[in-house]
């Protein structure tokens, strides 16, 4: 990735990023979008998005990345893969969403009123720390980071799960946590230098 300089403006990224995305597996297919809108019609959350999937591809190809990244669209994707399965041009739109999420996170671009980036960061933090994702710890940390007072609304559900033995308070690490971290560090060192 050539996107490791945190202080560059989004505008400067456009050309490089479009090239990076086109290099993704099957990324070239983005060029073959016919703007038919099958993706938007298939998307279960497109009505809650600032821009529909079809519009995102149009903005993306026009190099208007700033508009794309400052919208809530990528964080409304629930990874259902309907768009990717139905696209007549074979575009893996869901993978473009991931690529855009990564770009937004790398550059600290947060869309208004969306806690998606916090959830993603918290999930990754759990895996790095424990090797697994201890649900109750994950939910606690996520709530503290995103909406500490709203968390009180989750308590009745947490209590019901606890009563039925479905809420585990501990967060044990896997035995191979050091190995897992070595793997992550090795990949990150390699990817960062390329």
């Amino acid at each position, binding site marked *: 990735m050539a996107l490791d300089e945190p202080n560059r403006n989004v505008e400067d990224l456009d050309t490089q990023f479009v090239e990076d995305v086109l290099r993704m*597996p099957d990324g070239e297919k983005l060029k073959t979008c016919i703007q038919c809108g099958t993706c938007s019609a298939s998307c*279960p*959350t497109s009505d*809650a998005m600032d821009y529909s999937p079809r519009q995102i591809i149009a903005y993306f190809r026009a190099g208007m990345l700033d508009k794309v990244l400052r919208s809530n669209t990528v*964080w*409304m994707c*629930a*990874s*259902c*893969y*309907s768009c*990717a*399965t139905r696209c007549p041009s074979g575009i*893996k739109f*869901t993978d473009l969403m*991931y*690529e855009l*999420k*990564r770009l937004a*996170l790398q550059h600290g671009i947060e869309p208004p009123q*969306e*806690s*998606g980036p916090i*959830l*993603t960061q918290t*999930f*990754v933090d*759990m*895996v790095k720390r424990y*090797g*697994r*994702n*201890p*649900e*109750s710890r994950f*939910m606690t940390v*996520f709530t503290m980071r*995103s909406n500490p007072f709203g968390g009180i609304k989750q308590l009745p*559900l947490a209590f*019901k*799960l606890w009563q*039925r*033995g*479905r*809420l*585990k308070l501990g967060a044990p690490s*896997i*035995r*191979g946590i050091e*190995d*897992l971290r*070595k*793997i*992550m*560090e*090795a*990949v*990150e060192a*390699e*990817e960062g230098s390329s």
Partner: protein
Amino acid sequence: MTYTFYPGCALEASAIPYDQATRAVSNALGIEMVELDDWNCCGATCYTSMAEITSFAVSARNLALAEPAGHDVVTCCNGCYMTLSKTNTYMQEDKRIRERVNAGLAAAGLNYEGTIKVRHFLDVILNDVPEGAIASKVKADLSGLHVAPYHGCQLVRPYATFLDAEFPKALDALIEMCGAVAVDYPLTAKCCGGMLMQTSKAVSVDLCASLMKLAMDRGADCILTACPLCHMNLEGYQDAIGQRMGREIQLPIVYFPQLVGLAMGLPGESLGLAASLIPLDDMLAKIKPLSEATEPVAAG
């Protein structure tokens, strides 16, 4: 039949009943599920959203650990299934990604050659268990039970090899095998919102309300799931879904191995039935013992 079992994180907590029922049904059918020793989180879509190659490496550690035994890796979680399948596909088909991931795995003395298959437990039950094996073990009469089959997303897209991406019928087949009635459920592969329940609750509640309404309109006594996240959204947030629908609802949400276990007359406690957040009494009342059955169906 021996498999490497990959439970995934949810099956250690909120989806403990799914884990229990999977193990109970496997035992009863002679399926040997050997849990992968010291497995780690698959990374789900969240890790992919953070760092692509690292996410493949995190996921691939499990495949590398499973490779020496040579058995198919079996999971019950749609998210784990999709994530492990995606990693597996890229490791097998993309030389550049395979080399970069294996360079990372080498830091822990691991390597993945790409020889393992990733399977969903539903696939195993339907396609590996000899035909008629479940039917011959059915000890309860489920013919009065109407079940809405809800496959969800990541079981069918984009890596499903054993069912249709638009109109999957795997759960329908399973329901019929158990002697119950599968209601026509065209939203079967529509999204529940997944993690959006935590970040954009109204959006996810809307999606769940559509799923719930259709199941109720079709006269379902319960919704059958194959994924811990679909299950949690429909079960744990049923109050909010009911508010959205403007009515009070209490529709049982059932993990598919629980239904198989009920049909086979396995004890309720081995299927984790008592851990349901929704009372199951009305649903269980529709299950009658077969006349030749030796054990009654217990609610657990």
